[in-house]
């Protein structure tokens, strides 16, 4: 599904290297987690994969089902099946949540040469999916993320994911700022989307989210590289001992 080889990335404005050769493969249907200390490059990787400005790729490749992600515009990556659940979902005053969702769903369908969803079908689908995530009609009517609580914003991300039905989902610290119940709700939403044809890359600081979204593989990122990969027990090790041992091992 997702294949990253030797990915090197600098910050565009500063002469600063963030990713220093990331190698990572997420096969179809699997859930991989990335943990790592602050500043190790986890969020940068998610932004670079989804096409945010401000970064320069100086080496390596990233492909989604064999297609070069880095050569595409952000909207093309989305249409190809990539989805990033933002750590800080953006508030967009003046654009209604429903208008936004429908525009996005239909733009992707159009880009893939599929038929656009009719207003009625769209409404039916969004209502059903919103209900599962406990998103009420009022939230759907409001401008995108404006006046949403932290938990509501994250649920809204998962709703978008559910509507867009991507193949490769990257969750950037989706658990940050969530209380226990909200985390459970978000995790349930994600688990409901798990399928053979869909993969997940879950970036998190905490083992707790991984209790709910059980990963197949856990990677530890430090200083712009994946320094160790293992099973779910690796997350427990981090939870108990912190990163010190792993970092020392790498050094």
């Amino acid at each position, binding site marked *: 599904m997702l294949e990253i080889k030797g990915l090197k990335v600098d910050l565009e404005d500063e002469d600063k290297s963030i990713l220093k050769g990331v190698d990572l493969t997420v096969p179809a249907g699997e859930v991989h987690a990335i943990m790592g200390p602050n500043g190790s490059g986890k969020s940068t990787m998610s932004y670079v994969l989804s096409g945010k400005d401000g970064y320069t790729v100086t080496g390596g490749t990233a492909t989604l089902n064999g297609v070069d992600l880095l050569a595409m515009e952000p909207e093309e990556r989305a*249409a190809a099946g990539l989805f990033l659940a933002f750590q800080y979902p*953006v508030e967009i005053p003046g654009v209604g949540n429903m208008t936004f969702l429908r*525009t996005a769903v239909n733009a992707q369908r159009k880009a893939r040469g599929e038929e656009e969803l009719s207003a009625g079908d769209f409404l039916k689908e969004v209502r059903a999916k919103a209900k599962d995530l406990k998103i009420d009609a009022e939230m759907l009517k409001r401008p995108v993320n404006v006046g949403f609580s932290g938990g509501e914003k994250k649920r809204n991300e998962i709703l978008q994911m559910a509507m867009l039905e991507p193949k490769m989902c990257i969750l950037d610290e989706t658990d940050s700022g969530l209380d226990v119940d909200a985390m459970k709700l978000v995790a349930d939403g994600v688990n409901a989307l798990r399928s053979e044809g869909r993969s997940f890359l879950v970036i998190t600081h905490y083992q707790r989210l991984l209790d709910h979204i059980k990963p197949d593989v856990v990677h530890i990122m430090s200083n712009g590289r994946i320094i160790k990969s293992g099973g779910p027990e690796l997350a427990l090790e981090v939870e108990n001992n912190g990163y010190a041992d792993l970092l020392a091992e790498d050094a």
Partner: protein
Amino acid sequence: MALPQRKQDATDARLAAVTLPDGPAWLTKARKAALARVSAMGLPARRDEYWKFSDPTTLTDTAVISADLADASDREFAGADALMAVFVDGAFDADASDDLEAAGVTITRLAQAQDITWAGDLLGTLEARGQSPVERPLAALTTAMATDGLLIHVTGDAARAVHVRYDRKDAGADVALHHVVKLDAGATFTLLESGAGAARFMSNMEVDVADGATFHHVRAQGRDTGRRMNTHTFTRIGTGSTFKSFTLSINGALTRNDCIMDIVGDDATAHVAGACVGDGEGFHHDDTVFITHDAVGCESRQVFKKVLRNGAVGVFQGKILVKHGAQKTDGYQISQSLLLDGDSQFLAKPELEIYADDVACSHGSTSGAIDEDALFYLRSRGVPHKTATTLLTLSFLAEALQEIDDESLGDDLRDRLAGWLDRHQS
């Protein structure tokens, strides 16, 4: 006081070319008085404080620069239930217009006016009042030269709106119109205006809103790129009454919309708003507003949004004057531009002059670009760059469009803006 020589010469040259239209004695008297005001003030020039951001030359010149005719299909407010009054290059078109008889409203054309007492008392008077403290010579010139216009007297609750449409057939027409609207106490009325009107279009509208009356005005100034337009709205707002005006400007070489609002009765509401979109160095759009609060407990609101690209220029000059004793005034003013590239310009001059001590006045003016984070967020969901830019631009304009009370009129204008934005993106 003598005018500077250059101004005197320019004014003399222009006035020499003016022939006053024929009319009844009271009208001729009003026109001559207006002409005398122009002589005394002199025509505006770039050095004048209120014209330093906009060059008035093409409005004051004797000659008119012709302007290509825009595609006239798909007209604004076509779906609105309104009585139509159509002017073609400033001449009334009876065939295209409805019978100007409507419930609760009496409409007479200026060109056919005889002895209409109410209009005689009003025509030119609000304009003359509006010459102080800031002189507006082009308004006086328009009062003098206007060949036609509508004199609308609203005595009750007008069931239907009146839609004045300004069509064009002659690429070089020079037109001046003058409307007078008088709302009696408790009356309600909606006036719609659409179309570019002429290569050079000068128009005055004097609106007297009596106690407890409500006046809604929604205007779309066509989409002809080369036209030049100067409109003046003068309004006197009585106790407990409401005045709301919204203007959409698409394209146009020069637009100067002056709105002079005089709040004379307590607990009144006065809103003026506008949205404009312009592409290219040939676009210059100027909103100039002067609101005088001379009563207690009144609310005024100015909301102006401009979307500019490729060297387009937007101007906002907005003043709130709160007189002695105008306590509990609530004044709000916002002027914002969205610059779609680095070449465009927004020039803003917000002014507050307050002599009462118990008032709330807020004002803000900003210039900004499209929010990159929002743009990326939309694109990351698969919304193409162009569509995302249009969505964000419409969201920028939304606050101004929300000033239109009638949702279907607002939707009509929003669709036009969306269409324009789609066509004007690289």
